[in-house]
């Protein structure tokens, strides 16, 4: 890159963090919904929550934690000049994102096959508390899933920048910010997993 370009690393990272805070408040709103309805329908939440498959949720937790590790290590790799290792780690992260979404596909398919999806006739026959649980489950995990897809696209895009050398050992803020976004996706799941999948088994 030419030397005239003014790079403000602190500004770039700070901007990313401000954006992440708005994301935290967005998901925070959904967790407030969860909390309010849990307080109102504690028994129904346990009944509905025990219908979720802990194995799907648990596997996806491992996948996301590992993908976060890969992203964190990729920055160290890039800054140490290990470009191929960096690309490999990021490729691993994108693969984890794909595994996560495939898991989610099978999980949702099974639920939908059993007639559990927003607006379904079966859901309307359930207790109000159970219906609310499944509605916010779809809303929260769906919004989170969209974030996984966006994160995978952003990371793939960053991989192209690394390949072309636009992002390199001396200029890595794009990777840093893409990584921050990916870690946020992991953070949200850290709360979704116990609240939705582990609520009393």
């Amino acid at each position, binding site marked *: 890159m030419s030397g005239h370009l003014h*790079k403000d*690393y*602190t500004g770039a*990272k*700070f901007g990313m*963090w*401000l954006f992440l*805070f708005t994301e*935290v*408040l967005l998901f*925070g*709103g959904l967790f*407030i919904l969860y*909390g*309010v309805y*849990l*307080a*109102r329908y*504690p028994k129904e939440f346990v009944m509905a929550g025990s219908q979720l498959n*802990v194995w799907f949720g*648990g596997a996806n*937790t*491992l996948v996301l*934690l*590992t993908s*976060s*590790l890969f*992203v*964190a*290590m990729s*920055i*160290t790799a890039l*800054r*140490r000049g290990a470009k191929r290792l960096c690309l490999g780690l990021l490729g691993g992260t994108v693969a984890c994102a794909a595994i996560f979404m495939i898991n989610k596909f099978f999980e949702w398919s099974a639920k939908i096959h059993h007639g559990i999806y927003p607006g379904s006739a079966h859901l309307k026959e359930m207790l109000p508390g159970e219906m609310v649980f499944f509605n916010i489950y779809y809303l929260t995990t769906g919004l989170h899933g969209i974030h996984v897809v966006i994160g995978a696209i952003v990371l793939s895009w960053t991989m192209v920048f690394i390949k072309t050398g636009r992002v390199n050992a*001396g*200029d890595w803020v794009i990777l840093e910010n893409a*990584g*921050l976004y990916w*870690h946020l996706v*992991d*953070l949200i799941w*850290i*709360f979704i*997993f*116990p*609240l939705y999948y*582990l*609520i*009393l*088994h």
Partner: protein
Amino acid sequence: MPEEHAHIIPYRTFLLVWVALLVLTGLTIRAAQFHFGALNVWIALGIATLKSSLVVAVFMHMKYEQPLFKLTLLSALAILAIFVGMTFLDVLYRS
């Protein structure tokens, strides 16, 4: 090359955090098998908060950032806490 950010975090640190996160995930699954009543949710939230602190501090390098970043993080969390607190003041104490 930017002068800040001189600190390169070694792989080992990240691996240790990852192991800690896996252990905590195991712990949260184990804890959910016991029936503590309302305490179950608080245990789950406590472990999740511990896990997310590790992710934010090390994976997201918050530990190594300037005070401005830390202060902003605290204000964002305070705003979230106010939202949660005000909502529950209404939900739990509505007569």
